[in-house]
């Protein structure tokens, strides 16, 4: 695996701003957002890879938000994303939202409501 150069990165200043949106975060060393940019890249790779698996599992060719949701629920490390993906609708039987790539298979039991009381 070739080492990718750090040219395709996220904007460092933007990352710093996002960090400091948190009141607890005070000063940030110059190198820190640079590292976070890299970590972000790796994170994207990780979640995209897992989502692609979901997409393929369902015989689809386009990654839909629902596949991301499934990935989040199947991986503990992506736990923190549960709230973000919660708003993604589960494909309904015969629904056209998922661009027709759901074959109306198993309907998920929606009785699983986990209110996450973090802290």
């Amino acid at each position, binding site marked *: 695996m070739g080492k990718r150069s750090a040219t*395709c990165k996220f904007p460092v200043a*933007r990352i710093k701003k*996002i960090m400091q949106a948190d009141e607890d975060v005070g000063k940030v060393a110059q190198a*820190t957002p*640079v590292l976070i940019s890299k*970590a*972000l890249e790796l994170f994207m790779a990780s979640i995209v*890879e897992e989502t692609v698996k979901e997409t393929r599992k369902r015989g689809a060719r386009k990654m839909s938000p629902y596949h*991301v949701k499934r990935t989040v629920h199947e991986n503990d*490390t992506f736990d923190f994303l549960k709230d973000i993906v919660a708003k993604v609708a589960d494909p309904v039987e015969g629904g056209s939202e998922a661009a027709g790539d759901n074959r109306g298979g198993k309907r998920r039991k929606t009785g699983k409501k986990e209110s996450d009381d973090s802290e």
Partner: protein
Amino acid sequence: MSDDERPLGSSGADDELSLPKATVQKLIHDMLPDDISCAKDTRDLLIECCVEFIHLLSSEANDVCEKDSKKTIAPEHVVKALTDLGFEKFVDEVKDVLKDHKQQQKEREKKTSRMEQSGMTEEELQRQQELLFAASKARFDAAN
């Protein structure tokens, strides 16, 4: 360097901060195999996930920083935070980036000291620069 509140055109809502779509799009595109594509909604969702990841990582790194009795979040804190959050597989590459960055910083410092070591005073350097400008201007005029 104080953090002054500058009106950014929006009502200063930091929650609207996001990442540039084009960068994310390109990144996703590079990662995808040839037979899979990404819906626009999915890309937007992934952007939100990224921002959330930054918040998570910052928060954790901040905790590490406080336990370290420091006031500035250092790269080392981020590395520890990654491990704490279960992303230890990222640690190696992230450490590489840190090494590169430090290297670049050293080279930058070398350049400034090189200027001091060139043996020319600032005036002489400035004059040299002006000569260079005049020369390139003359070339430009000639081309016109």
